[in-house]
């Protein structure tokens, strides 16, 4: 039999204002197992905690019920108090008589009655509490960063600078991501390459960082501190250790007519290629689908001209297995396809382009060497229309586009418009918008400058139709403020396409058992208080894989994710939460219901031998819970049809005892 002490807190007048705390303490004294009951003004204060410690010693208490605020607030505090008094911390139960009682009731009798009932439930539970001890698991002191854009780069650098080894896995032949494709960056207009490429070099030269470029994660097993990851290094048919990046092979390759992904397909590259001059690693890659040597066994020119002897047509995909303590997802974003938006005639005219294509058109390393020329005829456009929110903020029923705001478009469109007016003052620029959203440091000032100093025509309203006719684009739009239909003959139209998570994110989330929202953005553990952690322990989020973000925000989140990883890798051992599920193997019927509902992938099934009462041996399929992965959510205990799953600290019998006490 337990010897239970009940401690009713006033919380100043927060509780005592609507709950008769003395009556609660008196009523609970009569409950089975209760040997001591008292009240105090602030139980969480040092004096209150001392009162508890003294009472434990004086009355030989074995369990505590604290009637106070939400356990989210002070459960940890009172567990420490219990430990200080020599009790197991899990012998404490909190009856929440503040948030769930005094704050929601106005009448003293009602509040008091409910507080007594909540107290009785807690007493009933403590009567069944047992001591729990958290388990421990070791930590592999190495981090994996998936994605090598600015988010992944920053996270990797921060973790590596703290002294931990980091591997970056990037699916493209080079790191750099979307930022490498940008021209200038808002709101300061520094050139993207000038601030990004030094960081890429830092990554390449860092002795704690390894880059797996042209690679993918294909399998993830294990749990926080102990992930086993398989990485596929795709065959690039070039020996990375020998290639010097001189580019002779690129010049000599006869297969020159392949769309250049880096320039958004606006010019061509050869079958063997280096994506751009500052690529890291600066190593050539052969596009197997375009190379005649690989397809037909004819050519071999690159191999002949390569002074380093780096070309290897026989190279195969290679699989690498590595252990990691933490995984950071930094898979980034892509602009959505314009297929469903042909009212803007994207498929009909080369002069209707997306904003990312515009970045390449104005970039000195782009297809036009930075001269703003129309893709169709190479002429300088004199009238440009920018359309914002193409596919963003679409109604849920629209069957196309995204419901959310893509967040970055207002600012980059203001940048494009301003830079166009700055370089080509003879060009008229129109921007059609739903709202202009500029919440960010120096953002609104930037937008105002585009309007006031650079004379960009901002028009509230959307473009309804673009009709290519001859060499003009007839733009039909509404001007909501002057309530007019506008017809503009434009030379170039730029669509601010919505952004969406990279397609690799969904299969990756499945591998990691990390949760996603309906738009395939990774979900954070708490939208406000744990924004860079996935609910899955040991998985962290960096950059636009979690939601649309600009560069400053991405870099902050990347650093925050790194600090969380460092905090994890600093530990030699991880102390788990002892309130985890466990399966009673004798009762388990092997149905897999628990495995299917577990959001963390903590439950596995295996065949085990059982000695039966009649001395025979039977092999049965039973569930087992990985204590390091289980987060104690309890979903499996509800799903289990035979009652074999139980959650320590919240056992089925404890919950039933609480319910009985409330319903008595």
């Amino acid at each position, binding site marked *: 039999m337990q010897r239970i002490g009940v401690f009713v807190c006033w919380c100043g007048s927060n509780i005592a204002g609507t709950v008769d705390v003395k009556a609660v303490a008196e009523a609970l004294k009569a409950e089975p197992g209760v040997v001591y009951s008292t009240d105090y003004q602030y139980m969480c204060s040092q004096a209150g905690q001392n009162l508890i410690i003294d009472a434990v010693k004086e009355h030989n208490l074995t369990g505590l019920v604290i009637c106070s605020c939400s356990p989210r607030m002070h459960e940890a505090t009172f567990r420490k108090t219990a430990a200080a008094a020599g009790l197991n911390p899990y012998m404490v139960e909190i009856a929440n008589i503040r948030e769930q009682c005094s704050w929601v009731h106005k009448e003293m009798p009602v509040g008091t009655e409910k507080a007594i009932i909540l107290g009785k439930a807690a007493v009933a539970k403590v009567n069944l509490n047992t001591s729990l001890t958290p388990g421990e698991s070791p930590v592999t002191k190495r981090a994996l960063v998936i994605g090598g854009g600015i988010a992944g780069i920053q996270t990797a650098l921060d973790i590596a600078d703290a002294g931990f080894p980091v591997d970056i896995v990037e699916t493209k032949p080079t790191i750099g991501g979307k930022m490498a494709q940008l021209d200038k960056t808002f709101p300061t207009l520094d050139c993207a390459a000038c601030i990004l490429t030094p960081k890429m070099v830092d990554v390449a030269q860092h002795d704690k960082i390894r880059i797996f470029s042209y690679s993918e994660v294909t399998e993830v097993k294990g749990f926080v501190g102990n992930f086993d990851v398989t990485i596929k290094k795709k065959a690039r048919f070039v020996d990375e250790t020998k290639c010097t990046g001189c580019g002779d092979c690129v010049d000599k390759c006869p297969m020159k007519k392949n769309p250049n992904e880096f320039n958004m397909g606006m010019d061509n590259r050869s079958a063997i290629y280096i994506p751009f001059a500052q690529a890291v690693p600066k190593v050539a890659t052969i596009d197997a689908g375009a190379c005649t040597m690989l397809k037909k066994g004819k050519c071999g020119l690159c191999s002949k001209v390569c002074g380093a002897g780096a070309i290897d047509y026989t190279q195969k995909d290679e699989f690498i297995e590595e252990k990691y303590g933490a995984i950071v997802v930094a898979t980034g974003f892509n602009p959505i396809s314009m297929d*469903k938006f*042909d009212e803007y*005639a994207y498929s*009909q005219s080369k002069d209707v382009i997306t904003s990312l294509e515009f970045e390449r058109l104005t970039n000195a390393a782009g297809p036009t060497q930075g001269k703003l020329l129309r893709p169709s005829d190479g002429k300088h456009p004199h009238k440009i229309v920018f359309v914002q929110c193409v596919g963003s903020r679409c109604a849920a029923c629209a069957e196309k586009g995204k419901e959310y705001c893509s967040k970055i478009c207002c600012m980059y469109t203001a940048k494009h418009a301003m830079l166009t007016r700055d370089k080509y003052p003879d060009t008229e620029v129109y921007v059609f918008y739903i709202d202009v959203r500029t919440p960010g440091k120096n953002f609104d000032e930037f937008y105002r400058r585009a309007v006031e100093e650079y004379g960009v025509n901002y028009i509230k309203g959307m473009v309804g*139709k*673009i*009709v290519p*006719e001859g060499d003009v684009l007839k733009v039909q739009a509404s001007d909501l403020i002057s309530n007019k239909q506008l017809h503009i003959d434009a030379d170039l139209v730029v669509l601010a396409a919505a952004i969406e998570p990279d397609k690799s994110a969904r299969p990756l989330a499945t591998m990691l058992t990390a949760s996603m929202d309906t738009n395939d953005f990774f979900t954070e553990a708490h939208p406000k208080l744990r924004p860079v952690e996935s609910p899955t322990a040991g998985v962290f989020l960096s950059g636009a894989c979690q939601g649309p973000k600009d560069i400053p925000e991405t870099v902050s989140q990347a650093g925050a994710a790194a600090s969380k990883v460092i905090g994890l890798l600093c530990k030699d051992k991880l102390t788990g939460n002892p309130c985890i599920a466990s399966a009673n193997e004798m009762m388990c019927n092997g149905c897999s219901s628990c495995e299917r509902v577990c959001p963390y992938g903590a439950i596995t099934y295996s065949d085990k031998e059982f000695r039966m009462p009649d001395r025979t041996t039977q092999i049965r399929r039973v569930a087992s819970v990985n204590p390091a992965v289980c987060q104690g959510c309890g979903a499996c205990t509800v799903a289990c049809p035979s009652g074999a799953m139980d959650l320590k600290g919240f056992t089925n019998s404890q919950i039933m005892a609480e319910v009985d006490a409330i319903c008595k």
Partner: protein
Amino acid sequence: MKLSYFPGCTLKNKAKDLDFYARRSAELLGVELEEIENWQCCGGVFTTSRDEVATKLSSVRALKDAQAKGQALVSVCSACHNVIKQTNHAMQTDKAFADKVNRYMAEENDYNGETEVLHYLEMLRDKVGFDTLKEKVVNPLKGKKIGAYYGCLLLRPNTVMGMDDPENPTIMEDLIKALGATPVVYANRNECCGGYIAVESPELAKKRSNAVVENAKAQGAEMIITACPLCKYNLIKNGADIPVVYFTELLAEALGIKEDANE
């Protein structure tokens, strides 16, 4: 293959060509179009007011007739197809509307949108197949540059009509290709011709129709095809200087049965 057929009023007088060539071509392609008995006018426009029942009853009767024979219901006029398809959708999804209609009809069996509704173009694409059609072409229209004109009723509302992408349709372009001609894609191919506004404001209809024809010509079209009698009327009435014909006429020409027309 036997399918129920709803011609519609206009196809019995102003738009006889649309109907005539549709039937003859179907025959050649092995599709028997069985005209619904005692069909009535579709109403011309699908009223969006949900308590309006009377104007939708003729569509329901046609749909029930097809259901009784276990056939899909085909129509070729854009407007008829639009009204019938939207009415059928309302019968499927709007329980209150369907109840009201069924009570009003007071017939033995209730109807709840079971009949498959097809436009003639869908029939060609999904039941006959453009590949099969291509094989039957005896008079390929080589070198003809043809602009498909969809108008508005054929494709919208997309959630109900579901025939093709309303902003970037391809079904008529695919037909043109199957007939051996070259489709001309132009942006205004899914814009409205002005429709009935021609009665109230001829100037506005002229503006709308001209925008379609001019855009088609600018992109190189030498001929426009349509499935809608009203579109054809507006385009020609407002001075189209390239031929505007029904797609069924073109189909018949390619299938080598055009000369049968003057009956």
